[in-house]
């Protein structure tokens, strides 16, 4: 680039020098041409010659006239005044026209000459027609006058010439000086150009030398590249260069190849694509291709041919590099073949895999279990219809299901735990049973295969769960029964033994005393025996009632009845039996109509009332309260007796269970259990609130018999 600019500058300077040279030369030549033209038009001598000729003619004319006037006749034609006058007129007329007139005018004699010319013209007729001697003499005088005028003209013109000549000399001198200046310019620029030329030649020599060296080097390279053939050719496909490497490729010696047509050297160069590539190279387009051929021995051969355009000495040539690439080519072909086989194998395997996958998917789809696969990041790979149909999934995550989302769907199911909410990659293996919708249990199991794929199975285990639940309830019932019997046995051992002991001791005393027994004492003993019998009867009855209830033999016959009246009636009867008890009422004045089996409810109220009296010591106080709330009627029985310990409250309704505060007080542990079961049969409940040594409060509720009542109560 820098060199280029330098070259550019040098070129400009050279051009400038040449321009200066040309300008100086042209100016100098123009000056010289001016001089030449000036010299060519220099006719001062002509003018003087013409004037002198005219003057001479005037003299001849005067002489002729003098002869004529002297009467001389018989002279030659040339001597006659007519002839001389004609000659004189022609001479004078030349002085009066053209450039000569200008010169005469300059010396101010044009007028005189014109007058003389007029006089001569006037004299013509006179001369032609036999003029007299007098006339001739007068004319001679005029002609002599003309002669003097011409002499003066010659003098003047000569002087004028001298003046002009000196001016011209000055002008020529100036031209010489100018020419000298121009010549100096010419010399300087020519010297500069010569210097440049000299340097240019030097540079050219150097470049030539360099080129020669390069040529030698390239020849060296071309001739010693043995593994690659190099060939150069021109537009006629004539071989210009054939390196020894070509001999190795095509088995033709360089001295046999150069100068011959390429097609004749090897059939390879007659091939259509080779010819086309060579032609393209000549036209300036590079090309690379491979030529495959089988030689005479059936050996396969592959040549890599690179064609490039080359410009040498303004000729467009082509160069081709040829390399035997048979080995690589064969290897490549083999690799291609293997590749092809491999691809076919892959295709077959892929097809087989696809089939297997389709089968697997079909199997998974047709399975009753839900199945889904996720990758290790939790991205869904596959899920069958059963998964999508699972209730939580169908509700919550139809879109963009990932494993964490999928697991969160199940987090609100019964049986779920924290693991489902916090699941993040890498996921842990989980197995959990979930109630995914009403009465449908499923086992959700997450397993990892190869640490990459995560499989989720959702198995319906409702049947199993049902059986398990049935077994559990059977077991519970069995355990309950066992407990009941154990309680029963313990209760019997306590409650039955005491009356039996009373009976036995009374009977022994009567037997031992025999006749000594006073009637009072006897009646006392008998009364004791009867009491024990009554007690045993009651015990048996309550046990039977419980058994009946267990066997489901108690039927519920609900009917509307008035609760307050029912309770008041029971209490009245009870107060007859327990006259010492203080029973207080807090009941609404309006009747409370409920829907119940009055016989069974009476048992409940009676049980609660007797319990309240029984566990309240010497002076029992019982408060009975009835009220309504919403569509239900409530009844509570309160005492301020021994109460029930807090830890035993949950068990108080178990059959045959008796609180430890109740020891020493006769009871079977059946009453409250019985009452609770009756209330359950009515769709109601019985509740307890109690404090040890503080008393107890039992409350049960029943449905009101109609809506009117309910509204009224509300």
């Amino acid at each position, binding site marked *: 680039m820098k060199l280029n600019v330098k070259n550019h500058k040098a070129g400009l300077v050279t051009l400038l020098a040449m321009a200066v040279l040309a300008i100086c030369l042209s100016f100098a030549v123009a000056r010289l041409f001016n001089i030449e033209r000036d010299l*060519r038009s220099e*006719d001062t001598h*002509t003018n003087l010659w013409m004037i002198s*000729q005219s003057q001479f*003619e005037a003299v001849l004319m005067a002489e002729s006239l003098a002869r004529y006037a002297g009467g001389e006749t018989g002279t030659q034609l*040339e001597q006659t005044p007519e*002839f001389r*006058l*004609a*000659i004189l*007129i*022609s*001479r004078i*007329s*030349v002085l009066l*026209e*053209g*450039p*000569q007139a200008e010169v005469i005018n300059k010396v101010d004699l044009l007028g005189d000459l014109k007058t003389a010319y007029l006089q001569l013209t006037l004299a*013509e007729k006179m001369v032609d027609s036999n003029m007299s001697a007098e006339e001739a003499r007068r004319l001679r005088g005029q002609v002599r006058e003309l002669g003097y005028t011409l002499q003066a003209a010659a003098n003047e013109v000569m002087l004028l010439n001298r003046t002009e000549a000196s001016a011209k000399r000055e002008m020529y001198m100036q031209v010489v000086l100018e020419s000298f200046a121009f010549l100096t310019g010419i010399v300087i620029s020519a010297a500069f150009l010569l210097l440049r030329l000299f340097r240019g030649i030097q540079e050219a020599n150097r470049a030539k030398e360099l080129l020669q060296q390069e040529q030698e080097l390239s020849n060296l390279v071309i001739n010693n590249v043995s593994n690659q053939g190099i060939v150069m050719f021109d537009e006629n496909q004539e071989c210009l260069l054939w390196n020894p490497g070509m001999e190795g490729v095509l088995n033709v010696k360089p001295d046999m190849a150069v100068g011959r047509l390429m097609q004749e050297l090897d059939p390879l160069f007659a091939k259509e694509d080779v010819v086309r590539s060579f032609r393209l190279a000549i036209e300036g387009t590079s090309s690379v291709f491979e030529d495959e051929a089988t030689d005479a021995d059936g050996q396969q051969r592959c040549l890599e041919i690179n064609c490039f355009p080359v410009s040498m000495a303004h000729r467009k040539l082509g160069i081709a590099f040829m390399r035997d690439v048979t080995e690589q080519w064969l290897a490549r072909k083999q690799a291609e073949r293997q590749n092809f086989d491999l691809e076919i194998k892959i295709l077959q395997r892929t097809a087989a895999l696809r089939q297997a996958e389709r089968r697997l998917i079909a199997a998974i789809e047709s399975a009753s279990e839900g199945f889904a696969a996720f990758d290790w990041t939790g991205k869904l790979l596959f899920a069958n219809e059963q998964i999508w149909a699972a209730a939580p999934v169908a509700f919550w995550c139809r879109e963009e299901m990932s494993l964490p989302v999928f697991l969160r769907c199940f987090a609100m199911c019964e049986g779920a735990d924290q693991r489902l909410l916090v699941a993040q990659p890498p996921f842990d293996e989980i197995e959990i049973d979930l109630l995914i919708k009403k009465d449908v249990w499923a086992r959700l199991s997450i397993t990892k295969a190869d640490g990459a794929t995560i499989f989720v199975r959702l198995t319906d285990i409702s049947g199993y769960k049902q059986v398990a639940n049935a077994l559990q309830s059977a077991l519970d019932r069995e355990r309950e029964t066992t407990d009941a019997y154990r309680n029963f046995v313990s209760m019997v051992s306590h409650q039955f033994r005491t009356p039996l002991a009373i009976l036995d001791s009374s009977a022994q005393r009567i037997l031992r005393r025999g006749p000594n027994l006073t009637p009072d004492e006897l009646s006392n003993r008998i009364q004791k025996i009867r009491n024990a019998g009554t007690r045993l009867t009651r015990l048996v009855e309550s046990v039977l009632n419980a058994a009946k209830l267990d066997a489901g033999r108690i039927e519920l016959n609900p009917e509307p009845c008035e609760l307050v009246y029912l309770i008041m009636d029971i209490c009245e009867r009870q107060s007859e039996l327990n006259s010492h008890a203080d029973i207080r009422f807090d009941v609404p004045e309006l009747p409370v109509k409920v829907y119940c089996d009055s016989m069974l409810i009476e048992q409940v109220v009676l049980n609660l009332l007797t319990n309240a009296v029984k566990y309240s010591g010497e002076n029992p106080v019982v408060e009975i309260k009835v009220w309504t709330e919403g569509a239900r009627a409530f009844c509570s029985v309160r005492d301020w007796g021994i109460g029930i310990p807090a830890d035993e409250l949950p068990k108080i309704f178990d059959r045959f269970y008796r609180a430890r505060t109740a020891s020493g007080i006769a009871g079977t542990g059946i009453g409250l259990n019985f009452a609770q079961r009756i209330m359950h049969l009515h769709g109601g409940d019985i509740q307890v609130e109690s404090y040890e040594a503080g008393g107890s409060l039992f409350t049960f509720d029943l449905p009101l018999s109609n809506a009117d009542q309910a509204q009224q109560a509300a």
Partner: protein
Amino acid sequence: MRYVMLLGMLATLLAGSSAAQAAETLPRPQGPVLLKVSGKIEQTNVDGEAHFDRQMLEALGKASFTTGSALTDKKQLFEGVSLRAVLERAGAKGSSMQASALNNYKIQIPLDDMKYEPIIAMRVDGQVLKLRDKGPLWIVYPRDAYPELQAQIYDSRWIWQLNKLHVE
């Protein structure tokens, strides 16, 4: 090259015409003699010279052109007879000739000048030339047709009041 060719042509023309004219001898002039040709000539009619009157000259054919001259600035139509024809008629065999005028002017004219086809003018702008108008004969070169003729050496060959040609 061109000159050689012209010379060749001239030579053949001269040879051919001289052979043709040789048979016909030059008649004696009837009117006043305008031009006398002497020297190396083959045809003679008076005292070893070839004399031409106006009629004889006009019989040699007409030649004319318009040109400017060194004497005047304006262009003029010159009519007359080809100088070459006159020389051929006289059977001139030389390389040059001396032309003389009635005013005693003399000039040497090489015959080579015939390549410019100069004429002997007898009319200028339609007017017959008389002695007082540089007549009756005036050798005229086609000065405007050839730039090389615009030089003093040729201007001096424009001899007027011509009356003699001496072929050497």
